[in-house]
């Protein structure tokens, strides 16, 4: 790797060629203030806070967007820079409501923290706040233009990482705002509710719709049995809100916290991830054996499903009809589990703790989400909302004794837990499909071909002599590459290039979902991924079909995968949706 020798404030430093001044400084623990720069994005150079000096040049440069050059001495901090940055910060603050106390980003706000670091005590300039109402049209996220600092992160995420283009820069100059093109509401826009905008926003201008009060109301309602499930990715991220390292596995503590918060039963989405594998794996084997439409494409990510229904609905026949684990868990809670405890669907209130904002949308996305006769899932809370509830309830998260999930829909295999990471659904499916196709067990359960962080990963898995071709994509911008291969083969009348494709909307998969704790970057992603793979490694069972509660639910209730009952309760349909609904 080519290295360059530079100086930072006179001190020699060697960094990789192509490094920005901002990142070079970080290697020496020097923090240059910045509000728009984000590791996930190309430098946008909007905020103006990261200006630095290059010795010998009268002009200042943006540290985020300037690659270091051999031999240069960069001044990152001096009194003049301090003054300029303070003025720019004061200017930004004069456009930002001083509502920290009631803002969802209080304590996690990057602007608040900069204002603190710079010791801003008053804003010398006249306050000027946009008079635009917040867009609360989606069930998932709220866009509050008044708080927007126009850093552009959300729009770049929506366009570059997600290829969705729901968010655009509208108008010019001081009237600039970020909103869907044409001035339509988010709900009428191409928005897929992935919430990556909210996860990247440095301030409280885009945030998950907070529904924690609904949870409190439900647990206070004596007539309701409140049943909570937690998604795979939550267990390796929630700890961050309590000062733990990313990737720390806190499953047992979450179960305990939920019971303290008033949950009557605590289940795990990982159980129904195993159930999904039984259905989706069987569906795949059925398609392969019976000349069905291939490739089969995963459907457990609601943001991806929404994207497909809007942008790629020619893929509907390829979509697995299996519902997402969360929805399966919901309907099993309101049918199978309701029977077990002798109650009715209407008396159960189902709550899911999810790393995802799109899950809030998914629970009412169409009529199939009422398979139990009632709304199968009543409430979705994100990891961030759960963290707040735990804090508000005065629970010492760190002190909690680990507990177990309830039975009979709480046990999970290692295959279920890796659903939270890109490639994990594929890997879990391979472990079971191998058994279904060959009647033998896969020897090495770690399917390395589908692991990793490359945006698109393609591989071949040997099913005892039969090559099963698979592909994995994450980050919506990567999906078209694979879909186009499928389309091309179809147009030419060739064999499908793949048997099975896994897609997750967010980079890294659910571990970096739009509802996860803030400050996610690839380093944090890697830690959370490692957390889930560790959970898999140390699991007693690592294959979905080995989960004893899975065997039991088929024996006692569902019959067999793809049975009539399964189809009624666990499968769904898709529809074309307009990209702009207005």
């Amino acid at each position, binding site marked *: 790797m080519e290295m360059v020798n530079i100086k930072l404030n006179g001190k020699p430093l060697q960094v990789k060629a192509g490094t920005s001044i901002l990142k070079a400084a970080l290697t020496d623990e020097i923090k240059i203030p910045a509000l728009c720069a984000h590791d996930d994005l190309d430098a946008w150079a909007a905020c103006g806070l990261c200006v630095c000096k290059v010795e010998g040049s009268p002009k200042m440069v943006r540290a985020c967007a300037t690659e270091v050059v051999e031999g240069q001495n960069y001044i990152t901090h001096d009194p003049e820079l301090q003054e*300029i940055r303070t003025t720019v910060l004061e*200017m*930004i603050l004069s456009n930002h409501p001083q509502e920290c106390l009631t803002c969802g980003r209080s304590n996690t706000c990057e602007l608040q923290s900069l204002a603190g670091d710079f010791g801003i005590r008053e804003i010398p300039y006249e306050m*000027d706040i946009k008079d635009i109402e917040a867009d609360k049209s989606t069930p998932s996220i709220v866009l509050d233009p008044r708080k927007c600092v126009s850093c552009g992160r959300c729009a770049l995420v929506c366009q570059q990482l997600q290829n969705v283009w729901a968010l655009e820069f509208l108008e010019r100059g001081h009237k600039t705002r970020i909103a869907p093109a044409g001035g339509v509401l988010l709900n009428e826009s191409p928005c897929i509710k992935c919430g990556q905008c909210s996860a990247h926003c440095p301030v409280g201008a885009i945030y998950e719709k907070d529904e924690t009060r609904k949870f409190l109301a439900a647990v206070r309602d004596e007539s309701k049995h409140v049943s909570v499930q937690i998604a795979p990715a939550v267990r390796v991220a929630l700890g961050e809100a309590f000062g733990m390292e990313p990737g720390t596995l806190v499953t047992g503590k979450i179960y305990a916290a939920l019971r303290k918060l008033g949950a009557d039963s605590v289940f795990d989405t990982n159980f129904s991830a195993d159930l999904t594998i039984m259905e989706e794996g069987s569906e795949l084997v059925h398609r392969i054996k019976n000349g069905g439409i291939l490739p089969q494409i995963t459907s457990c990510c609601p943001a991806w499903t929404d994207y497909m229904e809007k942008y790629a609905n020619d893929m509907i026949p390829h979509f697995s009809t299996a519902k997402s684990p969360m929805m399966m868990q919901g309907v099993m809670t309101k049918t199978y589990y309701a029977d077990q405890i002798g109650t009715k669907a209407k008396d159960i209130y189902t709550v899911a703790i999810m790393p995802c904002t799109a899950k809030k949308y998914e629970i009412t996305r169409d009529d199939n989400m009422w398979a139990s006769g009632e709304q199968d899932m009543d409430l979705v809370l994100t990891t961030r909302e759960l963290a707040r509830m735990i804090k508000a309830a005065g629970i010492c998260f760190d002190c909690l004794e680990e507990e177990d999930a309830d039975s009979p829909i709480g046990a999970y295999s290692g295959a279920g837990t890796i659903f939270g990471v890109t490639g994990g659904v594929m890997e879990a499916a391979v472990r079971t499909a191998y058994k279904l196709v060959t009647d033998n067990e896969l020897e090495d359960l770690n399917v390395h071909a589908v692991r990793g962080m490359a945006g698109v990963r393609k591989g071949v898995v040997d099913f005892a002599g039969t090559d099963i071709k698979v592909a994995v994509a994450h980050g919506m911008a990567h999906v078209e590459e694979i879909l186009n291969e499928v389309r091309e083969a179809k147009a030419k009348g060739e064999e499908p290039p793949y048997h099975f494709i896994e897609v997750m909307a967010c980079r890294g998969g659910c571990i970096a979902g739009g509802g996860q704790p803030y400050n996610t970057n690839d380093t944090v992603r890697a830690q959370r991924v490692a957390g889930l793979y560790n959970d898999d490694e140390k699991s007693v069972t690592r294959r979905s079909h080995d989960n004893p509660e899975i065997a039991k639910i088929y024996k006692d209730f569902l019959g067999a995968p793809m049975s009539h009952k399964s189809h009624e309760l666990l499968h769904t349909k898709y529809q074309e949706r307009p990209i702009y609904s207005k």
Partner: protein
Amino acid sequence: MAVKNYVLVCGGSACESAKGNDIYKSLLHQAEVQGVSNDLQIVKTGCFGFCEKGPIVKVLPDEAFYVEVKPEDAEDIISENIVKGRMVDRLLYKEEGKKEYKPENIKFYQKQKRIVLRNCGLIDPESIDEYIARDGYLGLEKALFELTPQQILDELKKSGLRGRGGAGFPTGLKWSFTQRIDADQKYVVCNADEGDPGAYMDRATLEGDPHSVIEAMIIAGKCVGADKGAIYIRAEYPLAIKRLEIAMDQARERGLLGDNILGTDFSFDLEIRLGAGAFVCGEETALLASIEGKRGMPIPKPPFPAAKGLFGKPTVINNVETYANIPVIISKGGDWFARYGTEGSKGTKVFALTGKIKNSGLIEVPMGTTLREIVFDIGGGIPNGKKFKAVQTGGPSGGVLTEDFLDTPIDFDSLISVGSMMGSGGMIVMDEDDCMVDVAKFYLDFCVEESCGKCAPCRIGTKKLYEILSKISQGKGEIEDLQKMKDMGQAMKKASLCGLGQTAPNPVLSVLNAFEEEVLEHINDGKCRAGKCKDLVQYSIDESKCIGCTVCARKCPVNCISGDRKVAHVIDQSRCVKCGACYDSCKFGAVLVS
């Protein structure tokens, strides 16, 4: 058959809108009626530059220079000048106080040197033959058949040509960056997105001599190895667009554009891209984004367009005036060009001279000419006996220069050293009736509207500076506002992403620097000495001077002035909107401003 006379009619936008086309048609008609059609050629040319006196008609070889011509004057021009061979005295331009017309005595032209505008006002811009007759496409011929790309670069470097768009980057160096990169595709782009208030140098060049830009772009393509080019021009320049299109078609017909130019293996073609008139699209990275169909917002440099430009490919991008210099630099040589101008700034510069100046118009002067020469010799000084106050160069990016700087030689470096900049060539002259707070406010208002909104210092700073200036102009300013404006101005200069934001505070900072006293008067005394800040002004009528002529009462748009004929008038202060119409219309100095 050789014609005896040429009648040149200005066909620039300004003269056209003042019935230039009717004059042209009337001349044709009169020539026909009076039977002299075969003796003359009537040509609609580009801008003569002397817009103050337009529409202009020039008759050659007599050198008769007719000004403020009307269509009905065509009869006299034909009957007198063409048929009888004597100039129409009443239409001839005469210097102030002079009764006689002498072509060599027109002061407006005496200190000018026309390189960029060499063909403007001389040839029919819609005729490639006339361009060729004036040595057009000689430079291209030389570039194609005699020079290597390196030799083209050498000529440019020898010429010392620096980009005329504002920053003054050496053109040869810029081209060499693109030339030495190996790439499957390169582009040549012309920035014709002229947007400074009051500036029209590029429009006039394109309207008057479109081939000069086209020829230069082909030379650029040959030099750097590009086969495609685009001219980005604002859609509100319809005449320039039309003439460019005609010129491009003619060039294609002659094999000067398209495949295998003049039989060589070099191919190059051009297209026109229309801009919607956003000032920021004059910034090169925003311009390229706009061509690509994206929102016009600047991106950080480096990488510079020379290495990574249009569609990510190496791109030469220059403005109209820069290109217009190039054909003659190549045909006559870099050394010839370097004879003009100063040590650091070679050649000439075109300015749009406007404001409180007798001879407003388009001028081209050698670099190094002083502001005094421009304002007082070429421009003829300040009209109506008013006193010179300042000249603004560089438009919204530049600053105001006071009398103390009138002897500053105009070149890139001197202007920057005195706190202004060359900009693209707008030059606005102000007199004692101009309020400097108002001037700064005007430019900030422009920048508030034209900031793209991407980067915080510019987006917020322009608005805040404007708001503070508004406060001051209303008499509500505070002394702390001066420091606030300086702080923000400094932050904008240093931390804005592109030239628009980096230079937007210049008008304010230069006013604070040169006219602090006047600004303080607004703040401390609630006084606007120029009477421009309406909130600080009260108009009244001096009874001893008013003769009761009623002119002011008739001019008043809200009818708040009353009084009988031959009796002193009175202004009803409660209804006065402070438009100043009474003050401007009173010939007896009876309207007082306080």
